[in-house]
């Protein structure tokens, strides 16, 4: 199969302004897509309201609209472009690629689809069709589909009123419960309810914030291990795993706020293969015909039960990370798949020898750490939960987890030059604690048990205060393998300190 010749112009919707949960990764993916599609000779029409992006530089698209990304405005653009295409006598159609501009693009495209605008003007969506998007995005439909293909999911129910939410809570039987509003970005309005009062409050907020007044009430998987797979599929049903990612922070912390590591470090090969097979089953069942998807898993550390949490039928924040972690340009390949190429027909730019159907292998460890800005919002709660709060991230590459972790920590630019020992004192409220001082036990316990931006450093403080791995695991549920790695760093810090002449 070769690229489609019935297409003349491709309309790409960007992600709009940078907000928490939707940052410049979509400039990266959109820019790649623009380049890839123009390389193939298509006329690229772009809409994005964010002038600070590279993709809106006039040379990256044939037609660049710096206009609001609203269904109304995009319809105006479609009409104008159809007219322009008639004027220039274009032979071929205008299609819409909605999977590269984050949730904003996907929501806008879906809105145009539901209101019949796309059908009326004969605009086909490429990359992912409306049905697949709906299956991936509607949590209940997605869960039912997973159960149908024999995969496990957290017990849950969908509610449209607080009363319905209460009934589901009753059925699941125990708190804490997770509340996720439908169709909101980065989990806006969601949360974890530990008691009935919180449950009512978060449910209400979630219903208000969901554009379709819908929330998912879900069994808590707090403390479970969390993993992600980046998958791509082509029209011939070839599937590849681009990258596997493990969340250092267990379930309960939004993956955008978690420290993440690639490739997965703590699964056996057998477990990994199960997850790989499940990923392919998911992308097929949802029906993403071409392009990339991100699939999230949780594994119960006590018994190994694996459940599917969600999938994004589009290029996501994790795709950008996976691209940088492996060197495999997911957005570029996704754009080429969308116009008809097959994975084995696309050459890997890096090796120039292997096709894109070769799964990347990596011989190093990648660590990503989120960067927060709580000092700007002193009235807000700095606890990390299922609603993303970080404003950026740093990534580092090393030959071991230890090397990449320390590099990532000093990449964060928060005045730290590694896990510890750099001499910078710690400021806790009005108190100042020296870098090599022993922290009070109650503070350590509090900072380990409630997820927060500094938790990684408190693992060091705990080890130095004499906590053992089991105690720290009990408080954090962070996999013991990671804790052992950190202990090696802390032990070596003591070796260095002891060598002081």
């Amino acid at each position: 199969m070769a690229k489609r010749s019935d297409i003349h112009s491709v309309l790409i919707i960007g992600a709009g302004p940078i907000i928490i949960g939707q940052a410049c990764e979509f400039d990266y993916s959109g820019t790649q897509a623009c380049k890839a599609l123009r390389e193939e000779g298509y006329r690229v029409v772009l809409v994005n309201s964010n002038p600070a992006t590279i993709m809106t530089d006039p040379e990256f698209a044939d037609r660049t609209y710096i206009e609001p990304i609203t269904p109304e405005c995009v319809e105006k653009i479609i009409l104008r472009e159809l007219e322009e295409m008639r004027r220039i006598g274009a032979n071929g159609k205008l299609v819409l690629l909605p999977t590269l501009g984050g949730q904003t693009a996907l929501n806008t495209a879906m809105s145009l689809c539901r209101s019949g605008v796309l059908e009326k003007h004969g605009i086909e969506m490429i990359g992912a069709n409306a049905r697949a998007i709906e299956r991936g995005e509607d949590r209940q439909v997605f869960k039912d589909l997973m159960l149908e293909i024999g995969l496990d999911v957290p017990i849950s129910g969908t509610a449209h009123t607080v009363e319905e939410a209460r009934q589901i809570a009753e059925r699941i039987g125990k708190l804490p419960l997770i509340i996720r509003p439908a169709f909101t970005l980065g989990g806006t309005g969601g949360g974890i309810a530990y008691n009935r009062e919180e449950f009512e409050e978060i449910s209400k907020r979630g219903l208000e914030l969901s554009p379709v007044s819908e929330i998912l009430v879900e069994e808590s998987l707090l403390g479970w291990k969390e993993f992600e797979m980046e998958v791509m599929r082509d029209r011939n049903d070839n599937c590849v795993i681009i990258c596997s990612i493990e969340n250092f922070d267990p379930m309960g912390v939004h993956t955008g706020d978690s420290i993440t590591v690639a490739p997965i470090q703590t699964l056996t090969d057998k477990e990994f293969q199960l997850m790989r097979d499940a990923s392919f089953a998911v992308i097929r069942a949802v029906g993403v015909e071409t392009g990339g998807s991100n699939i999230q898993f949780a594994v119960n550390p006590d018994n190994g039960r694996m459940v599917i949490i969600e999938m994004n039928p589009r290029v996501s924040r994790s795709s950008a990370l996976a691209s940088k972690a492996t060197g495999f340009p997911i957005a570029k390949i996704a754009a080429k798949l969308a116009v008809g190429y097959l994975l084995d027909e696309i050459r890997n730019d890096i090796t120039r020898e292997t096709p894109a159907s070769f799964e990347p292998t990596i011989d190093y460890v990648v660590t990503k750490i989120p960067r927060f800005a709580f000092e700007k919002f002193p009235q807000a709660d700095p606890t990390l939960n299922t609603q993303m709060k970080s404003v950026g991230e740093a990534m580092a590459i090393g030959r071991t987890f230890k090397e990449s972790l320390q590099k990532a920590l000093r990449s964060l630019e928060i005045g730290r030059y590694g896990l510890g020992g750099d001499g910078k004192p710690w400021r806790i409220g009005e108190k100042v604690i020296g870098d090599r001082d022993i922290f009070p036990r109650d503070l350590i316990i509090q900072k380990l048990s409630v997820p927060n931006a500094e938790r990684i450093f408190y693992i060091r403080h705990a080890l130095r205060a004499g906590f053992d791995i089991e105690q720290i695991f009990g408080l954090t549920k962070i996999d013991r393998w990671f804790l052992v790695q950190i202990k090696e760093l802390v032990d070596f810090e003591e070796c260095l300190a002891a060598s002081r002449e």
Partner: protein
Amino acid sequence: MNAELLAKAKSLGFSDRQIANLTGRTEDQVRAERKSLGLVPSYRLVDTCAAEFEAYTPYYYSTYDRGDDEVRPSDRKKVMILGGGPNRIGQGIEFDYCCVHAAFALKEDGFETLMVNSNPETVSTDYDTSDKLYFEPLTLEDVLHIYEREKCWGAIAQFGGQTPLNLALSLQKNGVNIIGTSPQSIEVAEDRKLFAAMLRKLDIPQPPNGIATNEAEALAAAHELGYPVLVRPSFVLGGRAMQIVYSDTELHHYMRFAVEASPERPVLVDKFLEDATEVDVDCIADVGQFEDQSEGTMVIGGMLEHVEFAGVHSGDAAMVLPPHTLSQEVIGTIRQYTHAMARELKVIGLMNVQYAVKGTTVYVLEVNPRASRTVPFVSKAIGVPLAKMAAKVMAGKSLKELGFTSEIWTKYWTVKESVFPFNRFHGQDILLSPEMRSTGEVMGLDADLGIAYAKSQMAAGAAPPLSGTVFISVSDAHKDDLPEVARLYADLGFELIATNGTAAILEKAGMKVRRVSKLSEGRPNAVDLLKNKEIQLVINTPAGQAPRADEVKIRTTAVYTGTPIMTTMSGARAMALGISALRKSGYSVKTLQEYH
């Protein structure tokens, strides 16, 4: 130091800073010792195939794991571009945009470009943006190794925001050729005393200011200047930053709880210019290339007039290009000052100046001889890639050679609006302040100013309502402007809602108002109406430094219910202008290619 111990430390990822501190040395000593032992990182390729096949795209990371170094030698002239590191509020995509442009520009001019950055979300860390990509932390240690390993000709530090700028001086001390405006000039702009001296020399006014190392001095300074004053630490700790202070009580509080003042870390006290109009100017210059600075060229890329009055961080303010209310005289003064400072600072590359205009007096607030947050916006607005040109200027081309010698004054309007993450931080008040809190920006473009503003609001997710009800509640300071602003909405056919105090003023001015209870007086109140979607727009200006709880509640409810809210009178005026334009003619769309 024990060589084996040192090697082990490096392989575990310990930085020189950590090792130095733990073993009682300086960072420089550790680096020197390592180098004498030949203990430097090797660079490996990210190649998708674990070295199974040959890799053609040079994407590197460093490691102290023993093994091959895979850097491909080349004898081309190399320029290193220092990226911005992780995104944070105040340093985001705008700087990545500039770095990417630097890479494109220098590639065009035949240099080999090396990008150093640690942010995976960016275009700058795409492997085909630069000739070589180093995915590395932006610290002195890591950057210096790459520079030395690659034997670069120069490094660009003025594009990646504060991160590379903070490294510039120490890199230079270690032999790095920082191209463009010299780090010394950057220091003049950043050092308060040197900067004041420069302004005196050029006869350019600056708001009256003082310095305080303790509470008594701060009070004395404030009394001399007169309230309100803008206070900020010269050395920022954990985000406790700028504040506008109106009274002794507030200043006491600030000095006791917000900062730790000391002789080494004084607090800066500036006279705050109330109701002044702020203007941001981005310009490009090559004057530093010439012995005789008058031979150089300096071009203003764009003047951006803030919609909100002084006191709102320039990263948070809405802005209009070209200025929409300034007189020709004021614009002329701004132009003259900008030129004078660019020459004095021998700028090679970009410079951003922030001005405050009060009456016909133009004050300089700040000068940054580097790429600013507004460079991409201005570049798109005028159709000239400023960052790209600046990179070429820094590498030796003159603006004359590049054919950019005169200012562009657009015939259409571009409006920049900021986007905030308040919906993520429940309970956080949303007022704009000198502390930047926006995460992103949008642009509205149109031949009509009102439509351009309306588009910027739509793009920011607060589409102007075309009809309905406006809830108005303003502070005493704004009561004089109240009737005029309210009338704009009444004339557009909006129903006005207010609580008793405000309602009385509006009625007195002859407008019809629906009264609503204060939050403490009973229900239904404004919060109820917001939740019921009975209010389409909120105009609420703050009642001073310590906002009343019910005000905060109204503002956060507006955010929460997605109701557009204007917290400044000038914002409310602009919104009325936008609504009026939309109602008159609707809006149309047009491509950037057609504008330029």
